[in-house]
């Protein structure tokens, strides 16, 4: 115990040389607020924060990220679980952060010694943020009333010293600490078809309105990155399209993110994109448009049957940024089967059957094939639009769609089908598709993963260009 006490004393002395911190600001004023997406609504003073969750959910990384942000180089990390070297090995991305803080290894200390360390650390007023990882390791050795009193002691020290205390806990249920701290973050791991998705929940932030309680986050490269709710991109900021060449014998999907996810599209294959009703159209557009523009820029042809609710103006704007008007006129056919004007253009009767639409598509494919440099055509089709049109004759729709997929397999064309999660012909189409990806929304974040082939799960955003998907892996 004495050696640790001396260690703490020497730390405070060293800190005295570094300079004095105000020790009076609270978590609301630090970068943690923006990291956690809280800055805009954190107004009350948050001195004590509890980060809880079962083992392996990322509590320590979150705590270190907060320490890095909130401590401003004047933090202390009290570890009851692992020594410093091991922590740096486990979370290499945080090595610098750990090195920059005071690290106290209390694995063999008792509660009295630890409380004394905290008194020394907090009374010196040099440490802005003090992390306990974990408090329960010590607290479990105490009986209930002793634990509650020790925790009250810690709260008293925190509020008097102006330091921010962050307690890491592996106790998932409510504990005495829950009632005492100013804020509670719970970190958890969810499963989406065998894929792990990390989520944090803000259970409590005293004196603060919480507009969104849950956020998805990733520990990619050992760093804590959370995802704000998906926002519709600003289409006035479209950058020039950069052509992506074929990937060996596969067609590029026109986006680095999509190519990395699927490895491009093999000629003759069908990629099915399943989406749930909460996925915004702009997220789907980011998958729908880049392959078309890339196909056109490679001097090939494309046909598009847009999703219901497609915005012609945005579509035109996006296409115009990617390819010239002549290319669009010559080698792109947009057939909106839900719109009377398009039915007229295509010489389709108002009550056209699935077979008649199929014939129009076949004729357009034949016509555009001749204009494609290598006679290949990309067909991007909304099954939902066709389902809406042929709701009373889904069997015929399934029949012609199956026929299209089979015919396409014998060609060098590529096929991308968009279908809603609740599509009545979903399972039949998916069974015939070579690739299959799912899009859905969780905590406001659009998530995507490949079912066939199996891929990891990604968050979809528009970080570089509003028309292109930025896919960040969730790990």
């Amino acid at each position, binding site marked *: 115990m004495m050696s640790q006490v001396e260690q703490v004393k020497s730390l405070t002395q060293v800190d005295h040389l570094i300079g004095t911190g105000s020790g009076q600001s609270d978590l609301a004023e630090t970068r943690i607020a923006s990291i956690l997406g809280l800055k805009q609504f954190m107004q009350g003073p948050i001195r004590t924060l509890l980060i809880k969750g079962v083992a392996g959910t990322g509590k320590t990384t979150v705590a270190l990220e907060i320490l890095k942000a909130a401590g401003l180089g004047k933090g202390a990390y009290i570890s009851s679980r692992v020594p410093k070297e091991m922590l740096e090995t486990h979370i290499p991305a945080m090595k610098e952060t750990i090195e920059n803080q005071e690290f106290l290894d209390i694995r063999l200390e*008792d*509660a*009295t*010694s*630890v*409380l*004394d360390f905290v*008194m*020394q650390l*907090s*009374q010196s007023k040099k440490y802005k943020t003090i992390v306990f990882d974990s408090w329960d390791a010590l607290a479990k050795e*105490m009986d209930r*009333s*002793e*634990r*509650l*009193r*020790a925790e*009250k*002691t810690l709260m*008293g*020290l925190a*509020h*008097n010293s102006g330091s921010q205390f962050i307690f890491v806990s592996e106790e998932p249920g409510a504990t005495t600490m829950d009632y005492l701290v100013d804020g509670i973050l719970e970190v958890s791991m969810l499963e989406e078809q065998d894929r792990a998705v990390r989520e944090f929940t803000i259970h409590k932030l005293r004196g603060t309105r919480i507009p969104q309680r849950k956020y998805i986050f990733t520990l990619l490269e050992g760093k804590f990155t959370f995802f704000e709710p998906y926002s519709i991109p600003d289409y006035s900021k479209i950058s020039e399209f950069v052509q992506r060449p074929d990937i060996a014998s596969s067609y590029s999907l026109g986006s680095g993110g999509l190519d990395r996810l699927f490895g491009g599209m093999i000629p003759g294959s069908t990629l099915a994109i399943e989406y749930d009703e909460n996925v915004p159209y702009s997220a789907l557009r980011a998958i729908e448009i880049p392959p078309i523009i890339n196909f056109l820029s490679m001097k090939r042809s494309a046909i598009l049957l847009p999703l219901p609710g497609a915005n012609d103006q945005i579509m035109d704007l996006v296409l115009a940024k990617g390819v010239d008007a002549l290319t669009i006129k010559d080698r792109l056919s947009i057939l909106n089967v839900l719109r009377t004007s398009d039915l007229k253009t295509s010489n389709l009767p108002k009550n056209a059957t699935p077979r008649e639409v199929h014939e129009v598509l076949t004729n357009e494919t034949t016509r555009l094939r001749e204009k494609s440099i290598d006679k290949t055509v990309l067909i991007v089709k909304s099954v939902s639009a066709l389902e809406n049109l042929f709701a009373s004759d889904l069997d015929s729709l399934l029949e012609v769609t199956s026929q299209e997929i089979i015919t396409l397999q014998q060609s060098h064309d590529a096929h991308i089908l968009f279908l809603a999660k609740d599509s009545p012909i979903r399972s039949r189409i998916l069974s015939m598709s070579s690739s299959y990806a799912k899009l859905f929304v969780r905590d406001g974040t659009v998530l995507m993963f490949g079912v066939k082939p199996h891929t990891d799960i990604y968050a979809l955003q528009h970080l570089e260009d509003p028309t292109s998907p930025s896919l960040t892996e969730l790990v």
Partner: protein
Amino acid sequence: MTQCYILLTTAPNEVPEDTILPKDDFAAVYANAIHGGLDKVLGHSGATAALYHTKMTNNLPDPAEFHRKLLGLFGLEGTLSLERAIVKDLALRLQWSLDLLNIEGSFDFNNTIHAVRSGASV
């Protein structure tokens, strides 16, 4: 927030005869009351840590110095709570009725302890 203060209303000459102690005995009772009062609020670990930190583990705390050290750790409100707990514990140990402690007016730990000591010692 309503602040409560303990005012010792008992004058030294009103102290019951059977609670008057020799000086050395008072010191022992006072030391035990310090431990007992802090234990009550901070728990055993917190009390031991606070006494260790304030370097009051072996010596009988000087009330004024002890007050200053507690202030540094727990602030005014925290210190008042702790000192009230100590005085209550002391009163119980001296078998003074808790009715003698009137919760009103200002509370001064140093004066209170000195008053109790002079009232309880011979």
